[in-house]
């Protein structure tokens, strides 16, 4: 058997992010529901509305990206670890997980921090 650190150190975050996602993603989806926002689906995606969303709760959207990417990529990592085994393979998958996660989170951070003003 391959020696590894406790898997629950990372897996427990899978469930914590899941709990957070229920609320944050629920809110994110509710932004698109006409019965709640009063806008049609495509109006809610207009530049004006999107800019308004970013300027009033950009931090929430960034946080949503952070937890959703973690939850999703960790799930994918689990599938890859089930597919094939081996020390090199496991280390590669774990490294790739963090690289892809940080890269995508970097894009999301960039989006939120240097969003140009509308106009």
């Amino acid at each position: 058997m391959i020696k590894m650190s406790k898997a629950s150190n990372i897996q427990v975050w899978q469930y914590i992010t899941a709990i957070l996602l229920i609320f944050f993603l629920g809110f994110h989806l509710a932004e698109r529901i006409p019965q709640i926002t009063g806008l049609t689906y495509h109006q809610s995606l207009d530049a004006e509305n999107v800019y308004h969303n970013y300027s009033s709760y950009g931090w929430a959207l960034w946080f949503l990206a952070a937890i959703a990417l973690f939850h999703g990529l960790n799930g994918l990592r689990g599938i890859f670890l089930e597919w094939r085994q081996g020390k090199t393979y496991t280390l590669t998958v774990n490294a790739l997980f963090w690289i892809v996660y940080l890269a995508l989170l970097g894009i999301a951070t960039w989006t939120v921090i240097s969003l140009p003003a509308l106009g």
Partner: protein
Amino acid sequence: MSLVEGGIPTPPEKVIFKIKRFDPEKQEFYWKEYEIETFRGMTVLDALLKIKEEQDSSLAFRYSCRMGVCGSCGMVINGMPRLACQTQVGAIATEGNPVVTVEPLYNYPPIRDLFTDFTSFFEKHKSVKPYLIRKDPQETETGDAEFAMTPEEYEDIYQFSLCISCGVCYAACPVAAMDPLYLGPQALAYAWRYVSDVRDEGYEERLKIIDTEHGCHRCHFAASCSAVCPKVVDPAMAIQKLRSTLYKKKLGAWKKKTSKKVGPYHYEGPSRAKKVPQLTEALLPGVDLEAKIKEPVNIDIELK
């Protein structure tokens, strides 16, 4: 999934058995068909034995007790992993479709025909330390006290200790199919059986063993292990309990139930034993009671 309650119909008179056999020399699978006459109450194991006796003596399969106790005859019958001795032909073959397919258990390396290699299965079973661990190893040898257990605490572990290691759950598990290192339903159920046992003190050690990338985190609750278990051990429940316990322990919200030691039983009240009075007269005529009492009891045992 067990015994179906009564009313299993009589199987069709002739049933076709399609058997997936493995040729160890060529290292490949091939299908073979046999047609046999059936009788009411015939199990799939009976049918396989009949094929072996009458048609093809080269057919290899593992079996022993014929009554769902030993757990040797697990095979995939009509697409579902189950015990051949607990599956009646009448329950699965109908007049419209008198075909029974038998395959070796999935997710095990085949040896020959329906024989599969259980080496890794038992390795995994051993790896979770399926026995009581006490901090003081001499305690069970020299101790004069018992580890008390309430009926409720016994009920918590009883169901999981019914496992007969037939390995049917591994064949149904979608994760075991992908990940050969996955500890699997049987081993994890056993880990939970001992973690939840109030007499056990080795839970820290055991939780460390199952807390790996190929331990309990790989279960995704497809619950197929429970659905096929012939002894209703319910490994799916055990794994979920094990996993939530692991997280609760990590977050500091779980405390292990332990048993108290109970000393030897001493009764200090008045004696309740009744003394049987001596017979005063012989019950059979012609027996000298006084002489009988004095005479030692001799029983002749012929030793060859």
